[in-house]
């Protein structure tokens, strides 16, 4: 099988799995997850083959694997869609396939496969546990299997299809197709427990918020397509003349060049998808999805797609300085903004959600300052360690739920970190893997992948002279380390703060194996990107990532020289943050004691409320206005004027003209005259035939005589 064919086939198994599960196997849980996981394995295998074949190609950037077919006829030409794997695509495919595979596997355990059906479980609500009687006659409450188990795998399959489509596309349109399919899946998965009003609202919020971005992105795609006549990345970026035309400054709104405008529109799509400020509001709410699998999807995979799209469009983006500034600003601002909120959150998943927003901000900021390899590097490493963290937090929650079921006290929130503590001993695998993930997120020096990628971003910012960006990102990195340590400390260290935490249990192998696999990558993946001239370590391993992904563009990005300042700063903020976090939070036992429970942060700077007032309220008001006032009031009002007015004219004509004049005067009058005449003349009608005849003869004679004499005289 050629590599191109294989690339075409990568997205197919999950899509087939979706249809198989929906149409046929949805009644059978085991069959459904077999189909789902099997599809994930197939795609993963295909991706690995493609990835390693891609590695073996020299100058893959210039000669990527491409293949395309005619799709839409557009006048004389065709719009072609196809697949392409270049270095960037290969790198992304690598982490996407692994994480997706892990998610599928993890879901089996997370949704309690093999456990009895719940006592009162209902579709659309999370399982509440089942009562079982063991051989000794004791009754236990154990976790119960998810009632919509099969459906979950179907959705996951569709989601995987969307993600793979997005990665392997060679053009912006199919990328957008995958993008939107993932949007749908995020809607379906966030609203998976649709019985919960909060989940229902969160699903809509996620879909609508991202759709705002999508609509702009669609405009951008349309604009790009109409200007260039193609959406194929290579055809656009390879055409220097075209790129030059697009880059002519000041031709459109706000003095942007065409390229800048298109890039900005596309970037707004990313803002929605990657939950950047000001469209970040949906991501924390998306944690309503089944913990933590869908959350992990959103945080580690789908949001990456936004960054991926921007990296893809980087040649276009870099044409306009103004757009780059906007991108850099949004990224940097989001990074610090989300990091401050994360400090004040108590829900274990929400902390991670805000940290995701913040980390995505890092990537966007990196793109804004032109460091696209650094952004891609951070994208990959972040995907690994954030996936690890989310799965880890899911494992923690699962363990806590076990405790809740054991005690039967359902008022305890299994996601609140202040209810945990000391889980280190109860859940050792989860603890160690979570620790690795957390350190990677904080950028623990040298060992973890997060350090290398974050360091590269900081180094780029410093080297390119973006001092404001550098300082802000460094602060954000410090906060990141701080809240990560806060999370680890509150969750795992110290002593259990509740009974439930005491009875938490380690999770089954289907959940822990993915954790272990991912922690390997959370550490090891950083080593492929160690700068060549890094002290001591540099050169031990080739800086493969930079070489490989950098080859995506025609112009190989220059390698920045080593500088001790950013390295020092990174070391200080990471270690400082971790240390301070541990020092402060090992003594904090409840939310009240926590200094950082600042209402403004806790309430996320009131963005939700503000949006409610500024956008949603007016929209609802407008929609009422358009129906009640415009349609039923004005337009129908005018129509309702015509109807009765016509009726009124009719009534007027009838009552004032027809009835008195025509009917009574002319009609009835004539009738009366006729009747009177008839009455007068009636006796003539004797009914005797011979009299009639005589009369007619007489008249004939008289008339005949008259005619004869008169005409005869005339003749």
């Amino acid at each position, binding site marked *: 099988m050629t590599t191109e064919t294989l690339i075409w086939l990568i997205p197919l198994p999950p899509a087939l799995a979706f249809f198989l599960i929906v149409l046929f196997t949805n009644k059978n849980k085991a069959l459904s997850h077999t189909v789902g996981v099997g599809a994930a394995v197939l795609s993963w295998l295909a991706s690995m083959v493609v990835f390693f074949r891609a590695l073996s190609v020299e100058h893959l950037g210039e000669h990527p694997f491409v293949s395309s077919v005619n799709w839409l006829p557009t006048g*004389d030409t065709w719009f072609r869609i196809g697949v392409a794997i270049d270095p960037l695509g290969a790198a992304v495919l690598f982490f996407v396939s692994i994480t997706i595979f892990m998610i599928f596997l993890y879901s089996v355990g997370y949704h309690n496969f093999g456990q009895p059906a719940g006592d009162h479980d209902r579709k659309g609500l999370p399982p509440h546990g089942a009562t079982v009687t063991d051989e000794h006659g004791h009754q236990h409450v154990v976790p119960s299997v998810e009632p919509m188990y099969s459906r979950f795998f179907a959705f996951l399959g569709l989601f995987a299809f969307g993600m793979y489509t997005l990665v392997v596309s060679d053009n912006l349109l199919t990328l957008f*197709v995958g993008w*939107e399919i993932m949007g*749908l899946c995020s809607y379906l998965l966030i*609203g998976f427990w649709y019985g919960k009003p909060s989940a229902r609202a969160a699903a*809509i919020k996620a879909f609508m918020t991202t759709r705002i971005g999508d609509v702009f992105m*669609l405009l951008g*795609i349309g604009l790009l397509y109409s200007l260039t006549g193609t959406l194929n990345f290579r055809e656009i970026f390879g055409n220097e003349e075209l790129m030059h035309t697009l880059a002519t400054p000041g031709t459109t709104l706000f003095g942007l060049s065409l390229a800048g405008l298109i890039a900005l529109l596309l970037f707004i799509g990313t803002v929605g998808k990657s939950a950047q400020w000001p469209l970040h509001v949906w991501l924390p709410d998306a944690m309503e999805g089944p913990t933590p699998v869908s959350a992990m999807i959103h945080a580690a995979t789908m949001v990456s797609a936004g960054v991926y799209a921007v990296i893809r469009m980087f040649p276009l983006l870099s044409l306009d300085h103004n757009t780059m500034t906007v991108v850099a600003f949004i990224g940097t601002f989001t990074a610090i903004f989300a990091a401050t909120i994360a400090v004040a959150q108590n829900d274990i998943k929400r902390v991670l959600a805000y940290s995701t927003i913040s980390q995505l901000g890092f990537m966007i900021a990196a793109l804004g300052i032109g460091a696209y390899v650094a952004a891609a590097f951070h994208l990959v490493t972040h995907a690994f360690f954030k996936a690890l963290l989310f799965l880890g937090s899911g494992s923690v929650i699962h363990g806590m739920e076990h405790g809740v079921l054991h005690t039967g006290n359902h008022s305890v929130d299994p996601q609140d970190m202040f209810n945990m503590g000391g889980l280190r001993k109860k859940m050792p695998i989860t603890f160690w893997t979570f620790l690795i993930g957390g350190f990677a997120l904080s950028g623990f020096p040298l060992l973890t992948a997060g350090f290398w990628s974050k360091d590269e971003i900081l180094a780029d910012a410093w080297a390119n002279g973006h001092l404001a960006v550098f300082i802000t990102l460094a602060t954000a990195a410090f906060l990141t380390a701080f809240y990560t340590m806060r999370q680890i400390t509150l969750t795992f260290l110290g002593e259990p703060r509740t009974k439930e935490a005491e009875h938490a249990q380690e999770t089954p192998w289907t959940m822990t194996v993915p954790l272990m696999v991912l922690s390997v990558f959370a550490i090891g993946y950083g080593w492929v990107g160690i700068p060549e001239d890094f002290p001591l370590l540099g050169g031990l391993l080739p800086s493969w990532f930079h070489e490989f992904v950098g080859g995506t563009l025609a112009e190989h990005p220059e390698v920045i020289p080593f500088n001790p300042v950013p390295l020092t700063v990174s070391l200080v903020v990471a270690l400082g943050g971790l240390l301070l976090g541990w020092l402060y939070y090992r003594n904090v036992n409840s939310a009240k004691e926590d200094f950082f429970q600042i209402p403004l942060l806790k309430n996320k700077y009131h963005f939700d409320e503000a949006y409610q007032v500024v956008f949603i309220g007016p929209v609802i008001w407008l*929609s009422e206005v*358009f129906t009640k006032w415009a349609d039923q009031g004005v337009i129908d009002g005018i129509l309702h004027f015509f109807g009765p007015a016509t009726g009124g004219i009719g009534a007027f004509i009838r009552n004032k003209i027809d009835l008195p004049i025509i009917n009574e005067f002319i009609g009835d009058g004539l009738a009366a005259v006729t009747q009177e005449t008839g009455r007068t003349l009636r006796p003539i009608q004797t009914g005797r035939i011979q009299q009639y005849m005589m009369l007619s003869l007489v008249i004939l004679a008289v008339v005949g005589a008259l005619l004869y004499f008169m005409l005869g005289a005339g003749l």
Partner: protein
Amino acid sequence: MNFIYEHLLLVILFFPTLAALVMLFLPAGENKLLRWFAFGASLVPFILSVWLWTQFDPNVAGYQFEAQYPWYEALHSSLHLGVDGLSLTMVMLTTLLTPIALLASFSINDRVKAYMMLFLFLETGMLGVFMAVDLLIFFVFWEVGLVPMYFLINQWGSPKGEREVRSIFGKFTMSARNYASLKFMIYTMGGSLGLLLAVQMLGVLFGNYDLQYITANWSGYTKDLMGISVSTVKTVAFWAFVIAFAVKVPLWPFHTWLPDAHTEAPTAGSMILAGVLLKLGAYGFLRLVLPLYPAEAKYFAGALAFLATAAIVFGAFASFGQTDFKRLVAYSSVNHMGFVVLGIAAAASAVGTQDATIALNGAVLQMFNHGLSAAGMFFLVGVIYERTHTRNLDDFGGLFPLVPVYGGILIFTRMASLGLPGLNGFISEFLVVRGSLPLLPVYTAVSMLGLLMTGAYILKGIKQVLHGPLNEHWAHGEHKLTEINTREILVMAPLMILILVIGLWPAWILDVINKAMMMLF
């Protein structure tokens, strides 16, 4: 067989009428027989149009399968039929949706015979418009379609509901279906008055009504008419055409008949109304307005685009504001058909360019797609209305656990309507946006607001019906909601398959449309 092939269009056109007349002689009480007979009869035109599709050569310009039959010799008007890629697509849509709608009507128990006959007459009326190559015939079929629809709404519409009509002359009430059918009829007839006059004028001027002849001569006509300058006459006639079609599409602000008519019509009536009748208006734009008035259309493209954008945006907002499920879906038709007209307006502003062709491709495909998804949506609303006898969204919620299959189908269809990539709506909306953006950038950008709100009202629909805690009211006892049955799934299945197929691989249909658009404009 040879005879049928030679008179294929005539057979397709009048077979439903013939079947309806045969139905006259079937016993009135035998509902089962009547239903199956009507359904079977409506399958025949469908099979024949599939044959037509296979025999049709998209590479040939002009009309194919042309056939001319004497009709009104004194006026030089003849029953001149013919199809090109544009009408073929619409004929396919009509013949596909009619059997589906009839199958959907199997739950009708009241005066089945009359109902089925009206439906078959309706099919002939609609097909006639799409096949006519003669202005007078076009107009005749245009009006013929109204009559069965009027009775379908008036007689089989939802029996409940009163409508209070307020005006400056005071208020009065009438039954909702009466109000809706009357509004539908008067609106459309009022709109087509100008059309009739303009058609007559062309007929008088050229001495015949042959569309090809008039098209070839009218746009270049420069002599004064009746002492009025030709440009004035053309402008007036242009607007006469536009208003007639705008009412049918419907464009803002001529749309207020639509929510009422859709809401009150029986389920299958709504399906056909949304699926085919609205397309008549858009078809009129493409078949008559653009070829006959290229200069005027170009001049007024901005105005048309304004109305289309207004329809898109206001339709979406209004849909979001509804509490009646069916009305919500009805307003979404305004929103979606707005895209069709936006594409047409864009094409009018630059006929012949690639952008225009793309916009037209999008518009025609959107017509087809909206036919599929709107019919599906109305049917699904009908399914739940039949079971619950309410359309109020506040009465629903939390139905997903009760009717998972229905829920899945509903979400699928709603997503098609939303324009989810991978399903058909996306292709056409993307093409319209792509085609319109360089030609009418501001209007297209504003219409994106409508696209955004499309998401809002569609999610609102799903949320209010399916999501939420299990609805106890519909879960037990006499109110227990039953799952969608096999017949209803069979109604949805062809629609869903087509939605998916067009979404994934649109080339088979878009190629025909594209070639037709290239040759037509």
